[in-house]
């Protein structure tokens, strides 16, 4: 605890004012409104509204469209949480085996972090565009009727690929940092005991990376749930049909395109609960790391 502080009473409030104002006006007030609207039903002209309790939630949760979006989100998020992690861990281990040129590889690996998610989606759409995509062309030559604009599975593969591509660099940097933090002595001891590298990796290195892995799992899930909106919006628009409509995309679509306030607000509140749960999980983990690390 700090013993010496400045004695001013008014100045700290002045310093805090900008941040507090921004959070109150643009965060707390709208979030409160989302809660309020989620329990109201507006008439079609938006002139009056009546309190309907949890009716909006009941309707949203029994709506096949919402359940479809939920299912799409679960599949999409699982793939986007695990695939970049697997690729990044594999590459991070390879990078650690190299003594010269490591820095150059790292510099090249971090590029996608700087690319906007929406543009990541567009880049993959350019490459795999059924009419002029250079990488769609060999698929056609092989007789595969590749068309992400019409085939739901192809659309899902394309958005997962773009989302994965963008997230590899982030996972890579954290795994490299994680690997570098593993004590040399442990691996030397394993080598002296005659453990093969593969055996040492799965019994020593991988368990020691658990905190990094778990952290990335949470970060990737949050990324898949929220940040990938740009990819979906720019590449598929939730289609074809509703094959790539995620929860966030549906909130946007219902609130802005279909102008269904009550349902959109109820969906917002459900998303808020998901974020709160994920953040809670993340902080439990941070506490653990503080205790043991």
């Amino acid at each position, binding site marked *: 605890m700090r013993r010496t502080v400045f004695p001013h009473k008014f100045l700290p*409030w002045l310093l805090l004012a900008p941040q507090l104002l921004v959070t109150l006006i643009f965060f707390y007030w709208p979030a409160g409104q989302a809660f309020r609207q989620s329990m109201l039903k507006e008439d079609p002209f938006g002139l009056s509204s009546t309190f309907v309790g949890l009716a909006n939630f009941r309707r949203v949760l029994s709506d096949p469209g919402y359940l479809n979006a939920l299912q799409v989100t679960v599949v999409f998020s699982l793939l986007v949480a695990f695939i970049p992690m697997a690729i990044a861990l*594999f590459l991070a281990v390879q990078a650690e085996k190299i003594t010269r040129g490591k820095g150059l590889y790292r510099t090249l690996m971090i590029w996608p972090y700087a690319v906007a998610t929406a543009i990541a989606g567009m880049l993959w759409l350019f490459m795999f565009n059924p009419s002029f995509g250079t990488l769609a062309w060999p698929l056609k030559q092989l007789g595969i009727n590749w068309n992400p604009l019409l085939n739901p599975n192809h659309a899902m593969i394309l958005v997962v690929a773009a989302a994965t591509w963008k997230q590899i660099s982030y996972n890579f940097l954290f795994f490299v940092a994680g690997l570098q933090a593993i004590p040399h002595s442990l691996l030397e001891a394993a080598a002296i005991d005659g453990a093969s590298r593969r055996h040492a990796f799965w019994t020593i290195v991988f368990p020691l990376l658990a905190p990094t892995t778990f952290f990335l799992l949470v970060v990737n899930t949050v990324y898949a749930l929220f940040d990938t909106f740009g990819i979906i919006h720019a590449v598929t628009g939730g289609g074809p049909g509703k094959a790539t409509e995620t929860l966030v995309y549906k909130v946007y679509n219902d609130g802005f395109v279909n102008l269904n306030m009550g349902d959109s607000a109820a969906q917002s509140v459900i998303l808020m609960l998901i*974020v709160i749960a994920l953040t809670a999980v993340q902080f439990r983990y941070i506490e653990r790391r503080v205790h043991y690390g």
Partner: protein
Amino acid sequence: MAESPFASRGASRIWAHFWMVLGVILVVFPVYYVFIASTHSTQTILRPPLPLLPGPEGLANYGDALSGGIGQIGGVSLWRLLGNTTLIAVGIAVGKIVISMASAYAIVFFRFPLRMVCFWLIFITLMLPVEVRIQPTYKVMVDLGLIDTYPGLILPLIASATATLLFRQFFMTIPDELLEAARVDGAGPWRFFRDILWPLSLTNVAAIFVIQFIYGWTQYLWPLLVTNSNEMNTIVIALKKMISFADAETPWNLVMVTSVLAILPPILVVVLMQRWFVKGLVETEK
């Protein structure tokens, strides 16, 4: 520096290089592809497969795009789009640094009632990303007349729990003796900040700037919500509009140039400021 305990020799190391090269190709290829496409004519782009080397149209494409060609597709010049995006990215990064530093300074170096309440108020915003309060936030923007304005694009994004946390953590490592000595010398809060704290914070400021510049440059949902006029578009949104109205007439060569210019500035920032970038990434995510 000691050699990494993972370091290998012989075949194993060659394999490691092989996999890394493959990884780099996977990661860099999409960016390379769009760069190559930006140097070919639309006819070449539309006739796959695309050559793997830059074509002869590069200068013509870039010249055309920058001197008004883009204006004919989206109605707004490429310079305007780049200007908008730069202004927003810098505005968000600087705004976040200023208000987070001010709040962290207040919380660490002063004692006042409700101090920890304020801290938690800022902290909890982590759990309220734009995505979960789209509609009501939009309504606030309409009520305040902030649609299609730069403050509307910047202000709501400058609250930052992560930057405040990072500065708070850093300020707490400043030894008490330093503050005592400064106060004995008669330094007030402003002089202590300017002469002692700010110079010590520079690496943290640089790290946060890099991360937040990229955050601002790559924004998508927010600009999509609060801009109607093409004049206020960021380059990312403009690009999305170009490809969604794509038809046989779309000048794909210019679209590719726009893509390259939308990607290049943040990549340059990351590559040139790599040291601060990695520091910022690792520390803001704790």
